[in-house]
Protein backbone atom coordinates (compact mmCIF):
# COMPACT_ATOMS: atom_id res chain seq x y z
CA UNK A 1 0.00 0.00 0.00
CA UNK A 2 1.22 3.50 -0.80
CA UNK A 3 1.61 6.10 1.91
CA UNK A 4 0.39 8.64 -0.62
CA UNK A 5 -1.18 8.01 -3.99
CA UNK A 6 -2.14 10.86 -6.30
CA UNK A 7 -3.94 10.26 -9.59
CA UNK A 8 -4.49 12.82 -12.32
CA UNK A 9 -4.77 15.68 -9.83
CA UNK A 10 -5.70 19.05 -11.26
CA UNK A 11 -6.30 22.41 -9.67
CA UNK A 12 -7.60 25.56 -11.31
CA UNK A 13 -8.00 28.53 -8.96
CA UNK A 14 -11.02 30.82 -9.17
CA UNK A 15 -8.93 33.45 -10.98
CA UNK A 16 -8.33 30.95 -13.78
CA UNK A 17 -4.74 30.09 -12.84
CA UNK A 18 -4.03 26.43 -13.52
CA UNK A 19 -1.73 25.32 -10.70
CA UNK A 20 -1.79 21.57 -11.34
CA UNK A 21 -2.23 19.98 -14.76
CA UNK A 22 -2.79 16.31 -13.94
CA UNK A 23 -0.29 15.00 -11.43
CA UNK A 24 0.35 11.32 -10.79
CA UNK A 25 2.53 10.47 -7.81
CA UNK A 26 3.03 7.48 -5.53
CA UNK A 27 5.04 7.52 -2.32
CA UNK A 28 5.92 4.19 -0.71
CA UNK A 29 5.35 3.37 2.96
CA UNK A 30 8.38 4.38 5.01
CA UNK A 31 9.93 6.33 2.13
CA UNK A 32 11.89 9.58 2.47
CA UNK A 33 10.67 11.46 -0.57
CA UNK A 34 11.71 14.83 -1.99
CA UNK A 35 9.17 16.96 -3.85
CA UNK A 36 11.11 19.70 -5.55
CA UNK A 37 10.09 22.60 -7.71
CA UNK A 38 10.69 26.30 -8.19
CA UNK A 39 8.42 28.85 -6.52
CA UNK A 40 4.95 28.64 -8.07
CA UNK A 41 5.60 25.21 -9.59
CA UNK A 42 2.67 23.63 -7.70
CA UNK A 43 4.31 22.03 -4.65
CA UNK A 44 2.33 23.93 -2.04
CA UNK A 45 -0.93 23.49 -3.96
CA UNK A 46 -0.31 19.73 -4.04
CA UNK A 47 0.44 19.67 -0.32
CA UNK A 48 -2.56 21.92 0.36
CA UNK A 49 -4.87 19.49 -1.42
CA UNK A 50 -3.37 16.44 0.32
CA UNK A 51 -3.87 18.12 3.70
CA UNK A 52 -7.45 19.29 2.91
CA UNK A 53 -6.54 22.98 3.01
CA UNK A 54 -7.24 23.44 -0.70
CA UNK A 55 -10.13 21.97 -2.70
CA UNK A 56 -9.01 19.98 -5.73
CA UNK A 57 -10.58 20.53 -9.14
CA UNK A 58 -10.37 16.87 -10.23
CA UNK A 59 -8.40 13.69 -9.67
CA UNK A 60 -7.98 11.64 -6.54
CA UNK A 61 -5.71 11.55 -3.52
CA UNK A 62 -5.47 8.74 -1.01
CA UNK A 63 -3.39 8.39 2.14
CA UNK A 64 -2.67 4.79 3.12
CA UNK A 65 -5.56 3.73 0.88
CA UNK A 66 -8.05 6.21 2.36
CA UNK A 67 -9.47 8.65 -0.17
CA UNK A 68 -9.23 12.20 1.23
CA UNK A 69 -12.82 12.93 0.20
CA UNK A 70 -14.62 9.63 0.81
CA UNK A 71 -12.66 8.57 3.92
CA UNK A 72 -11.59 11.98 5.03
CA UNK A 73 -11.20 11.21 8.74
CA UNK A 74 -9.18 8.01 8.27
CA UNK A 75 -6.94 9.77 5.74
CA UNK A 76 -6.32 12.67 8.14
CA UNK A 77 -5.59 10.34 11.06
CA UNK A 78 -2.51 9.10 9.16
CA UNK A 79 -1.21 12.52 8.12
CA UNK A 80 1.07 15.01 9.83
CA UNK A 81 1.70 18.33 8.18
CA UNK A 82 4.30 21.04 8.72
CA UNK A 83 3.34 24.01 6.55
CA UNK A 84 5.61 26.74 5.26
CA UNK A 85 3.96 29.56 7.20
CA UNK A 86 3.42 29.71 10.95
CA UNK A 87 -0.16 28.58 11.53
CA UNK A 88 -0.57 28.16 15.27
CA UNK A 89 -2.16 30.53 17.75
CA UNK A 90 0.72 32.77 18.73
CA UNK A 91 -1.04 33.77 21.96
CA UNK A 92 -0.97 30.20 23.28
CA UNK A 93 1.91 28.63 25.16
CA UNK A 94 4.03 26.07 23.35
CA UNK A 95 2.66 23.12 25.31
CA UNK A 96 -0.95 24.27 24.93
CA UNK A 97 -0.57 24.42 21.15
CA UNK A 98 0.33 20.74 21.19
CA UNK A 99 -2.35 19.77 23.69
CA UNK A 100 -5.09 21.55 21.75
CA UNK A 101 -3.93 19.89 18.53
CA UNK A 102 -3.98 16.51 20.28
CA UNK A 103 -7.54 17.25 21.37
CA UNK A 104 -8.59 17.83 17.76
CA UNK A 105 -7.33 14.31 17.03
CA UNK A 106 -9.39 12.91 19.90
CA UNK A 107 -6.36 12.14 22.06
CA UNK A 108 -7.19 12.14 25.77
CA UNK A 109 -5.46 14.79 27.91
CA UNK A 110 -3.31 12.36 29.88
CA UNK A 111 -1.94 10.70 26.75
CA UNK A 112 -1.61 14.08 25.03
CA UNK A 113 0.63 15.35 27.83
CA UNK A 114 2.93 12.33 27.46
CA UNK A 115 3.16 12.78 23.69
CA UNK A 116 3.67 16.54 23.99
CA UNK A 117 6.54 16.04 26.42
CA UNK A 118 8.22 13.55 24.09
CA UNK A 119 7.78 15.74 21.00
CA UNK A 120 8.98 18.89 22.77
CA UNK A 121 12.05 17.11 24.12
CA UNK A 122 12.76 15.71 20.66
CA UNK A 123 12.61 19.26 19.26
CA UNK A 124 14.68 20.70 22.16
CA UNK A 125 11.72 22.84 23.20
CA UNK A 126 10.82 21.32 26.56
CA UNK A 127 12.32 24.27 28.45
CA UNK A 128 10.10 26.60 26.41
CA UNK A 129 6.85 24.72 27.07
CA UNK A 130 5.31 27.54 29.14
CA UNK A 131 6.48 30.33 26.82
CA UNK A 132 3.85 32.18 24.82
CA UNK A 133 4.70 31.15 21.27
CA UNK A 134 4.91 34.63 19.77
CA UNK A 135 8.01 35.21 21.92
CA UNK A 136 9.90 32.36 20.23
CA UNK A 137 12.48 32.81 17.50
CA UNK A 138 11.62 31.86 13.91
CA UNK A 139 13.57 28.60 14.17
CA UNK A 140 11.81 27.64 17.39
CA UNK A 141 8.41 28.36 15.85
CA UNK A 142 9.24 25.97 13.01
CA UNK A 143 10.24 23.32 15.54
CA UNK A 144 6.93 23.85 17.37
CA UNK A 145 5.14 23.06 14.12
CA UNK A 146 7.17 19.88 13.68
CA UNK A 147 6.50 18.84 17.29
CA UNK A 148 2.80 19.52 16.75
CA UNK A 149 2.73 17.41 13.58
CA UNK A 150 4.25 14.48 15.47
CA UNK A 151 1.58 14.49 18.19
CA UNK A 152 -0.95 12.20 16.43
CA UNK A 153 1.90 9.80 15.49
CA UNK A 154 1.30 10.14 11.75
CA UNK A 155 2.38 7.43 9.32
CA UNK A 156 2.95 10.09 6.66
CA UNK A 157 4.65 13.38 7.53
CA UNK A 158 4.77 16.20 4.99
CA UNK A 159 7.26 18.98 5.64
CA UNK A 160 6.93 22.03 3.41
CA UNK A 161 10.28 23.83 3.49
CA UNK A 162 10.81 23.18 7.21
CA UNK A 163 14.35 24.51 7.26
CA UNK A 164 13.75 27.73 5.32
CA UNK A 165 15.47 30.62 7.06
CA UNK A 166 16.82 28.42 9.84
CA UNK A 167 20.49 28.59 10.84
CA UNK A 168 22.73 25.67 9.98
CA UNK A 169 22.98 24.34 13.54
CA UNK A 170 19.21 24.03 13.90
CA UNK A 171 18.93 22.78 10.34
CA UNK A 172 21.30 19.93 11.15
CA UNK A 173 19.31 19.04 14.27
CA UNK A 174 16.16 19.02 12.13
CA UNK A 175 17.81 16.66 9.66
CA UNK A 176 18.69 14.31 12.51
CA UNK A 177 15.12 14.48 13.76
CA UNK A 178 13.69 13.77 10.30
CA UNK A 179 16.01 10.80 9.83
CA UNK A 180 15.04 9.47 13.25
CA UNK A 181 11.31 9.82 12.56
CA UNK A 182 11.78 8.12 9.18
CA UNK A 183 13.75 5.28 10.78
CA UNK A 184 10.82 4.73 13.15
CA UNK A 185 8.66 3.95 10.09
CA UNK A 186 7.05 7.26 9.18
CA UNK A 187 7.07 8.10 5.48
CA UNK A 188 8.32 11.64 4.93
CA UNK A 189 7.70 13.97 2.03
CA UNK A 190 10.05 16.93 2.07
CA UNK A 191 9.94 20.06 -0.02
CA UNK A 192 12.95 22.29 0.20
CA UNK A 193 14.98 24.86 -1.66
CA UNK A 194 18.17 23.48 -0.10
CA UNK A 195 18.85 20.76 -2.65
CA UNK A 196 21.79 19.32 -0.74
CA UNK A 197 19.22 18.61 1.98
CA UNK A 198 17.10 16.58 -0.44
CA UNK A 199 20.16 14.87 -1.88
CA UNK A 200 21.45 13.84 1.53
CA UNK A 201 18.16 12.81 3.13
CA UNK A 202 15.83 11.49 0.45
CA UNK A 203 15.73 8.16 -1.33
CA UNK A 204 13.20 9.09 -4.00
CA UNK A 205 12.42 12.34 -5.72
CA UNK A 206 9.87 14.06 -7.92
CA UNK A 207 10.38 17.39 -9.62
CA UNK A 208 7.30 19.45 -10.32
CA UNK A 209 7.42 22.20 -12.92
CA UNK A 210 4.55 24.41 -14.09
CA UNK A 211 1.98 22.08 -12.54
CA UNK A 212 3.37 18.86 -13.97
CA UNK A 213 5.69 16.15 -12.67
CA UNK A 214 8.69 16.35 -14.98
CA UNK A 215 10.89 13.84 -13.16
CA UNK A 216 10.06 11.02 -10.77
CA UNK A 217 12.67 8.42 -9.85
CA UNK A 218 14.98 7.28 -7.11
CA UNK A 219 17.78 9.64 -6.16
CA UNK A 220 20.61 7.40 -7.36
CA UNK A 221 19.12 7.02 -10.85
CA UNK A 222 18.50 10.73 -11.10
CA UNK A 223 22.01 11.66 -10.05
CA UNK A 224 23.44 9.20 -12.58
CA UNK A 225 22.04 11.49 -15.31
CA UNK A 226 24.63 14.08 -14.41
CA UNK A 227 27.46 14.03 -16.90
CA UNK A 228 29.29 17.16 -15.86
CA UNK A 229 31.02 17.93 -12.56
CA UNK A 230 31.52 21.49 -11.34
CA UNK A 231 34.47 22.59 -9.23
CA UNK A 232 35.77 25.78 -7.68
CA UNK A 233 39.54 26.23 -7.94
CA UNK A 234 41.53 28.52 -5.63
CA UNK A 235 44.55 29.78 -7.55
CA UNK A 236 48.08 30.68 -6.45
CA UNK A 237 48.26 33.70 -8.74
CA UNK A 238 45.84 36.27 -10.03
CA UNK A 239 44.19 35.76 -13.43
CA UNK A 240 42.82 38.48 -15.65
CA UNK A 241 40.84 36.31 -18.05
CA UNK A 242 39.69 32.68 -17.75
CA UNK A 243 41.83 30.17 -19.61
CA UNK A 244 40.55 28.61 -22.83
CA UNK A 245 41.16 24.86 -22.84
CA UNK A 246 39.28 22.54 -25.17
CA UNK A 247 36.79 20.26 -23.35
CA UNK A 248 36.49 22.48 -20.25
CA UNK A 249 34.39 25.51 -19.51
CA UNK A 250 35.95 28.09 -17.17
CA UNK A 251 34.47 31.13 -15.42
CA UNK A 252 36.52 33.61 -13.46
CA UNK A 253 34.56 34.25 -10.25
CA UNK A 254 37.22 36.40 -8.57
CA UNK A 255 40.76 37.23 -9.65
CA UNK A 256 42.06 34.15 -7.81
CA UNK A 257 38.97 31.96 -7.98
CA UNK A 258 37.99 29.94 -11.02
CA UNK A 259 34.99 27.69 -11.65
CA UNK A 260 35.26 24.81 -14.08
CA UNK A 261 32.81 22.36 -15.67
CA UNK A 262 34.41 18.97 -16.32
CA UNK A 263 32.73 16.29 -18.43
CA UNK A 264 32.57 12.96 -16.56
CA UNK A 265 34.66 11.43 -19.36
CA UNK A 266 37.61 13.67 -18.40
CA UNK A 267 39.68 13.06 -15.29
CA UNK A 268 40.90 15.67 -12.85
CA UNK A 269 44.47 14.65 -13.72
CA UNK A 270 43.90 15.73 -17.30
CA UNK A 271 42.58 19.06 -16.04
CA UNK A 272 45.61 19.64 -13.80
CA UNK A 273 47.97 18.79 -16.67
CA UNK A 274 46.26 21.31 -18.91
CA UNK A 275 46.31 24.00 -16.22
CA UNK A 276 50.04 23.40 -15.60
CA UNK A 277 50.69 23.86 -19.30
CA UNK A 278 48.95 27.23 -19.02
CA UNK A 279 51.06 28.02 -15.94
CA UNK A 280 48.07 28.05 -13.59
CA UNK A 281 48.84 26.66 -10.12
CA UNK A 282 45.99 25.30 -7.96
CA UNK A 283 45.98 25.81 -4.17
CA UNK A 284 42.77 23.91 -3.43
CA UNK A 285 39.52 22.79 -5.02
CA UNK A 286 35.94 22.09 -3.86
CA UNK A 287 32.55 21.17 -5.36
CA UNK A 288 30.89 24.24 -6.84
CA UNK A 289 27.43 23.14 -5.72
CA UNK A 290 25.65 19.94 -4.94
CA UNK A 291 25.00 17.73 -7.93
CA UNK A 292 21.24 17.76 -7.58
CA UNK A 293 21.09 21.53 -7.84
CA UNK A 294 22.68 21.49 -11.28
CA UNK A 295 20.43 18.69 -12.45
CA UNK A 296 17.38 20.51 -11.12
CA UNK A 297 18.33 23.62 -13.07
CA UNK A 298 18.85 21.56 -16.23
CA UNK A 299 15.42 19.92 -15.87
CA UNK A 300 13.35 23.01 -15.16
CA UNK A 301 15.08 25.33 -17.63
Amino acid sequence: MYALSIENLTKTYSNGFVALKGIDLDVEEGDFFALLGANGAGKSTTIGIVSSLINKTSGSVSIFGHDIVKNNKQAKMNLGIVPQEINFNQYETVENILLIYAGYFGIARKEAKIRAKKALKQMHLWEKRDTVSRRLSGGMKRRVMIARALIPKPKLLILDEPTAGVDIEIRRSMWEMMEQVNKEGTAIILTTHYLEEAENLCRNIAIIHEGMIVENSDMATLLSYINVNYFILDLEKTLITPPEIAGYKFDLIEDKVLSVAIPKSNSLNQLFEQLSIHNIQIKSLKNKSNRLEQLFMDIVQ
Partner: protein
Amino acid sequence: MNTLIALYTISHKEIHRFLRIWPQTLLPPAISTSLYFLIFGKLIGDRVGSINGVGYMDYIVPGVILMSVISHAYSNVASSFYAAKFQSHVEELLVAPVSSWVILVGYVSAGVLRGLMVGSVVAIISLFFTELQVYNLTIILVTAFFTAILFSLAGFINAIFANNFDDIALIPNFILTPLNYLGGVFYSVSMLPEIWQHISLANPILYMINSFRYGFLGISDISVELALGRVLGFIVLLTLICLNLLQKGTGIRD
Protein backbone atom coordinates in the same frame (compact mmCIF):
# COMPACT_ATOMS: atom_id res chain seq x y z
CA MET B 1 -11.11 9.07 17.13
CA ASN B 2 -13.01 10.44 20.07
CA THR B 3 -15.35 13.12 18.76
CA LEU B 4 -16.32 14.25 22.25
CA ILE B 5 -12.68 15.05 23.07
CA ALA B 6 -12.43 17.16 19.91
CA LEU B 7 -15.68 18.94 20.76
CA TYR B 8 -14.58 19.55 24.34
CA THR B 9 -11.21 20.87 23.12
CA ILE B 10 -12.72 23.44 20.77
CA SER B 11 -15.37 24.51 23.26
CA HIS B 12 -12.93 24.72 26.18
CA LYS B 13 -10.40 26.66 24.11
CA GLU B 14 -13.04 29.19 23.05
CA ILE B 15 -14.53 29.59 26.53
CA HIS B 16 -11.07 29.98 28.04
CA ARG B 17 -10.30 32.64 25.42
CA PHE B 18 -13.14 34.98 26.41
CA LEU B 19 -12.77 34.33 30.13
CA ARG B 20 -9.04 35.12 29.94
CA ILE B 21 -9.86 38.57 28.56
CA TRP B 22 -12.92 39.18 30.76
CA PRO B 23 -12.28 42.93 31.14
CA GLN B 24 -12.86 43.17 27.37
CA THR B 25 -15.62 40.61 27.07
CA LEU B 26 -17.73 40.69 30.25
CA LEU B 27 -17.13 44.09 31.88
CA PRO B 28 -18.07 46.61 29.13
CA PRO B 29 -21.75 45.56 28.95
CA ALA B 30 -22.07 46.17 32.69
CA ILE B 31 -21.05 49.79 32.17
CA SER B 32 -23.00 50.49 28.98
CA THR B 33 -26.22 48.94 30.27
CA SER B 34 -25.93 50.82 33.56
CA LEU B 35 -26.02 53.97 31.45
CA TYR B 36 -29.07 52.69 29.54
CA PHE B 37 -30.91 52.02 32.79
CA LEU B 38 -29.87 55.37 34.25
CA ILE B 39 -30.63 57.56 31.24
CA PHE B 40 -33.53 55.78 29.50
CA GLY B 41 -35.00 54.06 32.52
CA LYS B 42 -34.60 56.56 35.33
CA LEU B 43 -34.16 60.04 33.84
CA ILE B 44 -36.33 59.77 30.70
CA GLY B 45 -38.42 56.80 31.80
CA ASP B 46 -39.98 58.69 34.73
CA ARG B 47 -41.44 61.17 32.20
CA VAL B 48 -42.62 58.43 29.77
CA GLY B 49 -44.85 56.81 32.36
CA SER B 50 -46.04 53.24 31.68
CA ILE B 51 -46.42 51.00 28.62
CA ASN B 52 -49.12 48.29 28.57
CA GLY B 53 -49.61 48.93 32.28
CA VAL B 54 -45.94 48.40 33.17
CA GLY B 55 -43.48 51.06 34.37
CA TYR B 56 -41.04 52.15 31.65
CA MET B 57 -37.95 50.91 33.50
CA ASP B 58 -39.52 47.46 34.00
CA TYR B 59 -40.60 47.47 30.35
CA ILE B 60 -37.14 48.06 28.88
CA VAL B 61 -35.11 45.76 31.19
CA PRO B 62 -35.88 42.45 29.32
CA GLY B 63 -35.07 44.04 25.97
CA VAL B 64 -31.79 45.50 27.20
CA ILE B 65 -30.76 42.13 28.66
CA LEU B 66 -31.58 40.30 25.43
CA MET B 67 -29.86 42.98 23.34
CA SER B 68 -26.65 42.23 25.28
CA VAL B 69 -27.10 38.49 24.77
CA ILE B 70 -27.53 39.04 21.03
CA SER B 71 -24.56 41.32 20.47
CA HIS B 72 -22.12 39.33 22.62
CA ALA B 73 -23.08 35.88 21.33
CA TYR B 74 -22.69 37.25 17.81
CA SER B 75 -19.41 39.09 18.30
CA ASN B 76 -17.78 36.26 20.27
CA VAL B 77 -18.12 33.76 17.43
CA ALA B 78 -17.57 36.27 14.62
CA SER B 79 -14.37 37.73 16.06
CA SER B 80 -12.91 34.46 17.32
CA PHE B 81 -13.47 32.44 14.15
CA TYR B 82 -12.31 35.30 11.96
CA ALA B 83 -9.17 35.68 14.10
CA ALA B 84 -8.51 31.95 13.61
CA LYS B 85 -8.78 32.52 9.86
CA PHE B 86 -6.66 35.67 9.97
CA GLN B 87 -3.88 34.02 12.00
CA SER B 88 -4.23 30.82 9.92
CA HIS B 89 -4.64 28.58 12.96
CA VAL B 90 -8.03 27.51 11.62
CA GLU B 91 -5.79 25.25 9.48
CA GLU B 92 -5.15 23.15 12.61
CA LEU B 93 -8.85 22.28 12.57
CA LEU B 94 -8.98 21.69 8.83
CA VAL B 95 -6.10 19.19 8.75
CA ALA B 96 -7.43 17.34 11.80
CA PRO B 97 -10.14 14.64 11.56
CA VAL B 98 -12.80 16.95 12.99
CA SER B 99 -16.33 16.95 11.55
CA SER B 100 -17.92 20.21 10.43
CA TRP B 101 -20.63 19.88 13.07
CA VAL B 102 -18.02 19.53 15.82
CA ILE B 103 -16.32 22.77 14.72
CA LEU B 104 -19.69 24.53 14.58
CA VAL B 105 -20.97 23.28 17.94
CA GLY B 106 -17.60 24.04 19.57
CA TYR B 107 -17.63 27.69 18.49
CA VAL B 108 -21.36 28.20 19.00
CA SER B 109 -21.27 26.75 22.52
CA ALA B 110 -18.73 29.38 23.57
CA GLY B 111 -20.79 32.13 21.92
CA VAL B 112 -23.91 30.94 23.73
CA LEU B 113 -22.12 30.84 27.09
CA ARG B 114 -20.68 34.31 26.65
CA GLY B 115 -24.07 35.67 25.56
CA LEU B 116 -25.78 34.13 28.60
CA MET B 117 -23.04 35.27 30.98
CA VAL B 118 -23.27 38.84 29.69
CA GLY B 119 -27.08 38.63 29.92
CA SER B 120 -26.73 37.52 33.55
CA VAL B 121 -24.36 40.41 34.30
CA VAL B 122 -26.86 42.88 32.80
CA ALA B 123 -29.71 41.26 34.73
CA ILE B 124 -27.76 41.70 37.97
CA ILE B 125 -27.01 45.36 37.10
CA SER B 126 -30.73 45.94 36.47
CA LEU B 127 -31.43 44.93 40.09
CA PHE B 128 -29.80 48.20 41.17
CA PHE B 129 -32.49 50.10 39.27
CA THR B 130 -35.63 47.98 39.57
CA GLU B 131 -37.06 44.78 41.00
CA LEU B 132 -37.10 42.09 38.31
CA GLN B 133 -40.36 40.17 38.09
CA VAL B 134 -40.36 36.61 36.80
CA TYR B 135 -43.62 35.58 35.13
CA ASN B 136 -42.42 32.39 33.43
CA LEU B 137 -38.81 31.27 34.08
CA THR B 138 -38.91 28.53 31.42
CA ILE B 139 -39.77 31.01 28.67
CA ILE B 140 -37.03 33.37 29.88
CA LEU B 141 -34.40 30.62 29.78
CA VAL B 142 -35.57 29.06 26.50
CA THR B 143 -35.75 32.42 24.73
CA ALA B 144 -32.32 33.51 25.97
CA PHE B 145 -30.82 30.14 25.01
CA PHE B 146 -32.41 30.07 21.53
CA THR B 147 -31.45 33.68 20.90
CA ALA B 148 -27.83 33.08 21.89
CA ILE B 149 -27.66 30.04 19.59
CA LEU B 150 -29.21 31.90 16.69
CA PHE B 151 -26.85 34.86 16.87
CA SER B 152 -23.81 32.70 17.48
CA LEU B 153 -24.66 30.93 14.22
CA ALA B 154 -25.11 34.29 12.49
CA GLY B 155 -21.72 35.40 13.81
CA PHE B 156 -20.16 32.23 12.46
CA ILE B 157 -21.54 32.95 8.97
CA ASN B 158 -20.23 36.51 9.20
CA ALA B 159 -16.75 35.20 10.09
CA ILE B 160 -16.76 32.71 7.22
CA PHE B 161 -17.43 35.43 4.65
CA ALA B 162 -15.29 38.13 6.31
CA ASN B 163 -12.11 39.08 4.51
CA ASN B 164 -10.94 41.71 6.98
CA PHE B 165 -11.79 43.07 10.41
CA ASP B 166 -14.06 45.74 8.87
CA ASP B 167 -16.32 42.95 7.63
CA ILE B 168 -16.69 41.76 11.23
CA ALA B 169 -17.81 45.22 12.36
CA LEU B 170 -20.03 45.89 9.34
CA ILE B 171 -22.96 43.59 10.15
CA PRO B 172 -23.20 44.48 13.89
CA ASN B 173 -23.00 48.22 13.16
CA PHE B 174 -25.23 48.48 10.14
CA ILE B 175 -27.69 45.62 10.55
CA LEU B 176 -27.69 44.18 14.06
CA THR B 177 -27.82 47.44 15.99
CA PRO B 178 -30.69 48.95 13.94
CA LEU B 179 -32.64 45.68 14.17
CA ASN B 180 -32.08 45.65 17.93
CA TYR B 181 -33.28 49.22 18.40
CA LEU B 182 -36.23 48.72 16.04
CA GLY B 183 -37.11 45.39 17.65
CA GLY B 184 -39.16 46.96 20.41
CA VAL B 185 -36.56 47.17 23.17
CA PHE B 186 -37.61 50.70 24.14
CA TYR B 187 -41.20 50.77 22.89
CA SER B 188 -44.21 48.60 22.09
CA VAL B 189 -44.88 48.05 18.38
CA SER B 190 -48.53 48.78 19.12
CA MET B 191 -47.44 52.41 19.56
CA LEU B 192 -46.33 52.56 15.90
CA PRO B 193 -48.51 53.54 12.90
CA GLU B 194 -50.13 50.44 11.34
CA ILE B 195 -47.78 50.31 8.34
CA TRP B 196 -44.72 50.29 10.62
CA GLN B 197 -46.29 47.63 12.78
CA HIS B 198 -46.44 45.35 9.70
CA ILE B 199 -42.88 46.22 8.69
CA SER B 200 -41.67 45.50 12.22
CA LEU B 201 -43.02 41.95 11.97
CA ALA B 202 -40.23 41.21 9.47
CA ASN B 203 -37.67 41.92 12.19
CA PRO B 204 -36.73 38.58 13.85
CA ILE B 205 -35.44 40.36 16.95
CA LEU B 206 -38.95 41.65 17.64
CA TYR B 207 -40.11 38.08 18.27
CA MET B 208 -37.27 37.29 20.64
CA ILE B 209 -37.63 40.46 22.67
CA ASN B 210 -41.39 40.02 23.02
CA SER B 211 -41.03 36.40 24.02
CA PHE B 212 -38.34 37.33 26.55
CA ARG B 213 -40.40 40.20 27.92
CA TYR B 214 -43.37 37.85 28.27
CA GLY B 215 -41.24 35.63 30.49
CA PHE B 216 -40.59 38.53 32.84
CA LEU B 217 -43.78 40.60 32.68
CA GLY B 218 -46.45 38.37 31.13
CA ILE B 219 -47.06 40.89 28.31
CA SER B 220 -46.19 40.59 24.63
CA ASP B 221 -47.10 42.28 21.35
CA ILE B 222 -47.12 38.91 19.58
CA SER B 223 -47.78 35.24 20.29
CA VAL B 224 -44.98 33.62 22.31
CA GLU B 225 -45.49 30.25 20.59
CA LEU B 226 -45.15 31.94 17.21
CA ALA B 227 -42.04 33.80 18.37
CA LEU B 228 -40.24 30.71 19.69
CA GLY B 229 -41.30 28.68 16.65
CA ARG B 230 -39.82 31.26 14.30
CA VAL B 231 -36.57 31.47 16.28
CA LEU B 232 -36.28 27.70 16.19
CA GLY B 233 -36.89 27.75 12.44
CA PHE B 234 -34.14 30.33 11.97
CA ILE B 235 -31.77 28.20 14.09
CA VAL B 236 -32.37 25.16 11.87
CA LEU B 237 -31.90 27.26 8.73
CA LEU B 238 -28.66 28.92 9.87
CA THR B 239 -27.27 25.60 11.15
CA LEU B 240 -27.79 24.04 7.72
CA ILE B 241 -26.18 27.04 6.04
CA CYS B 242 -23.15 26.92 8.38
CA LEU B 243 -22.64 23.18 7.85
CA ASN B 244 -22.93 23.57 4.10
CA LEU B 245 -20.37 26.41 4.08
CA LEU B 246 -17.95 24.41 6.25
CA GLN B 247 -18.37 21.34 4.08
CA LYS B 248 -17.61 23.33 0.93
CA GLY B 249 -14.77 25.15 2.67
CA THR B 250 -16.16 28.56 1.76
CA GLY B 251 -13.87 31.29 3.06
CA ILE B 252 -11.49 28.84 4.74
CA ARG B 253 -10.05 26.72 1.92
CA ASP B 254 -8.22 27.88 -1.22
